[in-house]
């Protein structure tokens, strides 16, 4: 296979890793809302950890994005 089309395919595959992050974010915020519904008093404390967790999960997706950019540079 030519290297350019292969690199495009690779970029797409790497960026597809964002799907996992999306699942993770949805799962986390869903659980968080469930928790807030059960314990409205704990919202202030929990939301801090929700945002930290969101940043972590989001970062995982961005690793894939960075990989895609690296492949773009090499292609």
């Amino acid at each position, binding site marked *: 296979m030519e290297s350019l089309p292969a690199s495009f395919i690779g970029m797409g595959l790497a960026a597809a890793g964002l799907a996992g992050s999306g699942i993770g974010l949805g799962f986390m915020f869903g659980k968080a809302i469930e928790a807030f519904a059960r314990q409205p008093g704990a919202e202030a404390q929990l939301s801090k950890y929700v*945002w*930290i967790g*969101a*940043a*972590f999960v*989001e*970062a995982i997706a*961005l*690793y894939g*994005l*960075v990989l895609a*950019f690296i492949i773009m540079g090499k292609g």
Partner: protein
Amino acid sequence: MLLTTTAISVDAAHAAAAAAPRMDPLHHFQVVKYIQMAPFGLDVSISNSVVWMWISLAAVFFFFRYAFRRPEMVPGRMQSVAEAGYLFIRGIVDENIGPSGKPFFPMVFTLFFFVLFCNWTGLIPGSFTATSQLIVTATLALGIFFLSIFLGFYKHGLKFLGFFVPSGLPVLLLPLMVPIEIISFLARPVSLSVRLFANMTAGHTVLGVLFFFAATLPWIGSWLPFGFSVVFTAVEIFIGFIQAYIFTILTCVYINDSLHLHH
């Protein structure tokens, strides 16, 4: 026949692409060296990245100087904000390191506001985000990494190597676990730097794409990306804060791991 039509269409596409405004959202990450200097083989060229880093740091310093130009018992607006920032960092240090974290407070304080203001000044149109440069975040992360290693050996001597041996594991599992622990330890600076850099890069890339569409689409369609770019700028302000916060928290966690061997 097929080949020639393809070639022609590629040619036409190239011609069209050259005429149309070209979308290049990665363009504003380009580091431009304003002054090239390399005394004693040391590259100290001043680029747009460095200039905006300085502007951010000057903003940090003058913000605090301005907020505390007349320190008062009952704080005004700016002073309240500055004090809130101080107490916020002190809370992070106390929470994650404890009383032995007091000597690291200035470093953590500086780190947080360095990253925060670099993230935020990058949102000014026409500016440059120093923290979107992998090498800048990697320098900070490696500095923290080596600091934590130094602290571990300084405080515990060779016992610090026990950090890589999880306690309460059967001996048979050790050949498996120790390399994993070592790799996860070595991955710390990588994940720390890539997280910040990738967040900033991705956020600004999305903003760049939105701005491009807002500027080039006909008016009937441009309001959508424009409105979305406004929303996303607010999200970026929030992400800039969250990333600085996480960078700081993880720094404190790493320092704490080196100071107190919990494993």
